[in-house]
């Protein structure tokens, strides 16, 4: 999978399946969550925005961790594909973080009474969004792609420190954002008929990420290898 032509051939086969699975999981999760799941005793129907907000926030952070892992592989083993993967994942992670911020804000207005508040959870998530922006900016400011890959790889490792801060912000400080509903140590403080569709949505969002990442990565591979014979062969035939 490490070599670009092998990845290209292999991804052509897997891509349609990723797309189909993403559509199935997401439409099932959203249909169940938005239309069938019971209303909340306190918030009414407003709470349903969490079926988009929570998966986006999860993805925004997991994609950054994935990118840092790509960065590590790129710096230590100099695997070309890991650098392309990091670059291809960045705009997706940034979009999910933006969706999490916007949906959170839309939920905050009717629930809290304000669009935005500078508490630790919201501020640290905004910082993550800016780190994504910095990473994309740094990449596009360096002409040599190999050097650009290495620079963003190191930045992704540096930026990784924000992830535990986001995760623990609601426990370390007093915030307006509520503490985690789902923890490893205790049973979730949400009824099962509400969190089951959420689980489907989270899987669906991960599948969308896998699908769009493959799509971006294929473009990146073709772009960087355009002078190579294997690319010419694909497009000539």
């Amino acid at each position, binding site marked *: 999978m490490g070599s670009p032509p092998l990845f290209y051939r292999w991804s052509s086969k897997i891509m349609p399946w990723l797309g189909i699975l993403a559509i199935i999981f997401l439409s099932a999760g959203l249909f169940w969550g938005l239309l069938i799941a*019971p*209303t*909340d*005793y*306190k*918030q009414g129907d407003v*709470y349903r925005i*969490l079926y988009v907000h929570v998966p986006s926030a999860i993805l925004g952070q997991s994609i950054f961790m994935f990118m840092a892992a790509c960065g*590590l592989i790129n*710096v*230590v*083993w100099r695997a070309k594909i890991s650098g392309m993967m990091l670059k291809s994942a960045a705009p997706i992670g940034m979009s999910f973080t933006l969706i999490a911020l916007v949906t959170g804000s839309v939920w905050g207005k*009717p*629930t*809290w*009474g*304000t669009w935005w*508040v*500078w*508490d*630790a959870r919201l501020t640290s998530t905004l910082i993550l969004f800016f780190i994504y922006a910095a990473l994309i900016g740094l990449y596009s400011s360096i002409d040599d792609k190999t050097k650009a890959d290495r620079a963003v790889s*190191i930045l992704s*490792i*540096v*930026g*990784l*420190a*924000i992830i*535990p*801060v986001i995760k623990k912000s609601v426990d*370390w*400080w*007093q*915030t*307006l954002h*509520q*503490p*985690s*509903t789902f923890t490893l140590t205790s049973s979730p*403080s*949400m*009824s099962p*008929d*509400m*969190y089951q569709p959420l689980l489907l949505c989270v899987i669906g969002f991960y599948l969308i990420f896998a699908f769009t990442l493959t799509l971006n990565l294929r473009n990146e591979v073709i772009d960087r290898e355009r002078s190579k014979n294997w690319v010419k062969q694909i497009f000539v035939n």
Partner: protein
Amino acid sequence: MNPLRKQRLYALIAVLIGSLLATWLVVSALSENMNLFYSPSEILEAGIDENVLIRAGGMVKQGSIEKSKDSLNVRFTVTDYQNELIINYEGILPDLFDENAGVVVRGNLRTDGSFQAIEVLAKHDENYMPPEVAKLIEAKE
């Protein structure tokens, strides 16, 4: 692993540790300022001046909400189960504002020791359940 790769790996680990350390230093230097609001106990301890804009937060005490009949004035007590603070506010309250629910208010202390709020935000907790389940829990209690 060949020595060159090992060296790069150690360098990266050093970068990560450095970054975590820097973040930790920033976060601990800011420590108290990272809190969005003060609890009633902290306000009593700190002896904050009047006219200083602060945020206070806690739970709305049961049976403490007094709404004026002919204006938007409202008076309620915020508690952290150790100390209490009386809040005065004039304006529209968020939908989730209720007894035994979290609240964050922005404003300043008054000379009589109560708090004049210019903004009231409702804090949501981490519990989600359908109304029928909430009724069952209430009945049990």
